[in-house]
């Protein structure tokens, strides 16, 4: 990598992340209105937290997951979820993902799922949301966005920020 160019990119990225973080903190708080369970914890190993607002709660089997939750796994830990649209998602060890969007309402034709992978590994197997709307499922990482059209996808982020 060219050192000068890399540094410029890093500064820009850091600035962008700072702005995104501010947006997330200010807007995210308001957007966290959903209290409906959109998924359920089905598999669990080791040390797993689900952060709702500012409160991290240890995950347990059968626990509901809400839109705007952040999923956090520790070392030698993993988490598996089943969503209401029958899609499934899992995190490997030392991983963090924010479920920033989830809508699944067949009657209102609302369907979307957006996950922000901060670091670690995530596997996703699409369900009905992807069938209803082919642009509805997205996973964002610090450097890229993946649009998922009915498939199984594995994502890893190495060296991502911790927040």
């Amino acid at each position, binding site marked *: 990598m060219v050192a000068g160019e890399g540094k410029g990119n890093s500064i820009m990225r*850091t600035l962008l992340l700072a702005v995104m973080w501010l947006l997330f903190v200010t807007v995210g708080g308001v957007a966290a209105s959903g209290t409906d369970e959109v998924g359920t914890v089905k*598999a669990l190993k080791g040390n797993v937290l689900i952060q709702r607002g500012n409160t991290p709660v240890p995950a347990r089997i059968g626990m509901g997951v809400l839109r705007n939750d952040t999923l956090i796994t520790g070392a030698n830990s993993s988490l598996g979820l089943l969503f209401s649209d029958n899609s499934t998602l899992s995190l490997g060890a030392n991983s963090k993902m924010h479920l920033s969007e989830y809508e699944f309402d067949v009657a209102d034709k609302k369907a979307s799922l957006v996950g922000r992978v901060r670091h670690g590994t995530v596997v996703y197997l699409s369900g009905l949301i992807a069938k209803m709307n082919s642009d509805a499922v997205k996973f964002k*990482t610090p450097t890229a966005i993946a649009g998922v059209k009915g498939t199984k996808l594995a994502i890893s982020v190495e060296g991502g920020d911790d927040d």
Partner: protein
Amino acid sequence: MTERFPVAALSILIMLLFTACSTPPKSRFVVLPSPDGHIGMVQVSTEAGQVTLNKANASTTIERAKAPPPEPVVMADADVALIFKDALEALPPGPVTFILNFEFATVKLTGESEKTLSKVLEYIKETGSTDITVIGHADKVGTKAVNARISSERAHAVAAILKDKGVAPSSIRTDYYGDTFPLVDTPRGVREPLNRRVEVTVR
């Protein structure tokens, strides 16, 4: 303006400090075959471009948001396992639906379905599921009202067996649709064994 300047300068300083210690994150995307063998499509975009992953194990690794994503490469299964083994193992199964059939105009399971019911119980035990729906259906012999009643009775009969075998009542939801949703469409008054059924979905 003058008051803001030091704050801005400080922020930039802090950011520079952070930048100095952080390496750029590396994002990898891999498309895997679904359990049914189907391979869908994933479009990976950065600020500078997009690639399409639509083959088994097709992968792209992105280190810079400002550069187009590298052309896809196909990863070996062993390399996929190396990175994703624990996450792949944690991926829960999706919902599984079992179909139980009944003798004509009764809530008596067919012999074959008695065996299926044992498999249902085994599967519930194995997965520890607490989300089980039991939905009754009838064929199109008789009035809609009678069929609604028999489909309800079938659902409740199956739910009763599940509870009797130790499934928590709070895990079971029953519902019934009479002859509204036949598996095999027939004219009214036609006996259709496949439509006399209860669908048990274990999530």
